[in-house]
């Protein structure tokens, strides 16, 4: 290991569990702080949009939620792929932990999009390429979760949902590039690698703060869910119990 840290050490649930437990409060605290600053900037510093009026402020939750919905799907598929390749149970547990949060952000992206669409387009929903592919993403998350719960054998459930997640990853670039590939009602990217940002700098700052906050929030809840999954799935997860409880258990036997 050139880094001097034995990363493989954390690939076992026993080592990962306490590490995650120590990290969660930090991610959660910074997420709450950044959300506070982001909301303050979004509502009190960022100016009114000259075209969309105050309705544009929905982007401060819509864009971060939409980015997270796509990003989390890719991360889930990567964990599923690593799990398939290395047959690593921690990877499958991480993939399992990501799905509900990803589904939640997909739902929020669609809901807040409808809230923006009604006043700006005059319609809650249109069958446009961007919206339709994002709706399909919600069904994909649902499929990954349903496949897991419908198969009793844990190893088969892991593999089936991993295959489903991996095949579905093709939809992510379709969502991302849909506004370029098709003539859609959804507006093009406001922030692009090639052309930079078309927004006022305070708007952009508020949106990026909210995005980082959503990231950190996601990491915190996913680690917390992974810990729950480890307790539920491992046959004898004594490593989390306090010494006194284990002692009590030993004496009771």
């Amino acid at each position: 290991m050139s880094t001097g840290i034995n990363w493989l050490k954390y690939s076992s649930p026993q080592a990962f569990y306490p590490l995650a437990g120590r990290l969660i409060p930090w991610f959660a605290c910074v997420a709450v702080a950044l959300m506070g600053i982001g909301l303050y900037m979004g509502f009190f510093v960022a100016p009114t949009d000259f075209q969309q009026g105050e309705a544009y402020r929905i982007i401060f939750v819509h864009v971060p939620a939409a980015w997270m919905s796509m990003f989390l799907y890719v991360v889930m598929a990567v964990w599923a792929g690593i799990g398939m390749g290395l047959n690593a149970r921690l990877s499958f547990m991480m993939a399992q932990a990501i799905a509900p949060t990803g589904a939640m952000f997909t739902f929020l992206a669609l809901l807040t999009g409808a809230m923006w669409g009604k006043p700006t387009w005059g319609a809650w929903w249109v069958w446009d390429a961007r919206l339709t592919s994002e709706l399909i993403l919600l069904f994909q998350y649902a499929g990954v979760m349903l496949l897991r719960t419908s198969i009793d054998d844990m190893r088969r459930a892991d593999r089936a949902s991993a295959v489903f997640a991996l095949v579905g990853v093709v939809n992510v670039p379709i969502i991302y590039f849909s506004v370029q590939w098709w003539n859609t009602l959804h507006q093009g990217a406001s922030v692009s690698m090639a052309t930079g940002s078309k927004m006022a700098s305070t708007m952009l700052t508020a949106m990026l703060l909210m995005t980082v906050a959503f990231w950190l929030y996601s990491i915190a809840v996913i680690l917390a869910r992974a810990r729950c999954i480890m307790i539920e799935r491992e046959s004898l997860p004594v490593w989390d119990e306090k010494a006194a409880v284990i002692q009590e258990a030993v004496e009771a036997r």
Partner: protein
Amino acid sequence: MQWGSASEFFAMGGYGLYVWTSFVATALCMVWEVSALWRRRVAARAEQRAALLGGTDETTA
């Protein structure tokens, strides 16, 4: 700052319903997710503890 009063702030230039529904729904989802995880953790740990303390016929022999 562009808001003259609190009511102006909540009205959001006539888009209040849409803006606040978006933000409140997001907040509710996050609060619900955290509380659901908290309950899941409490339940999982209770089960784990019961298994550890109660034991089964094979382990208590």
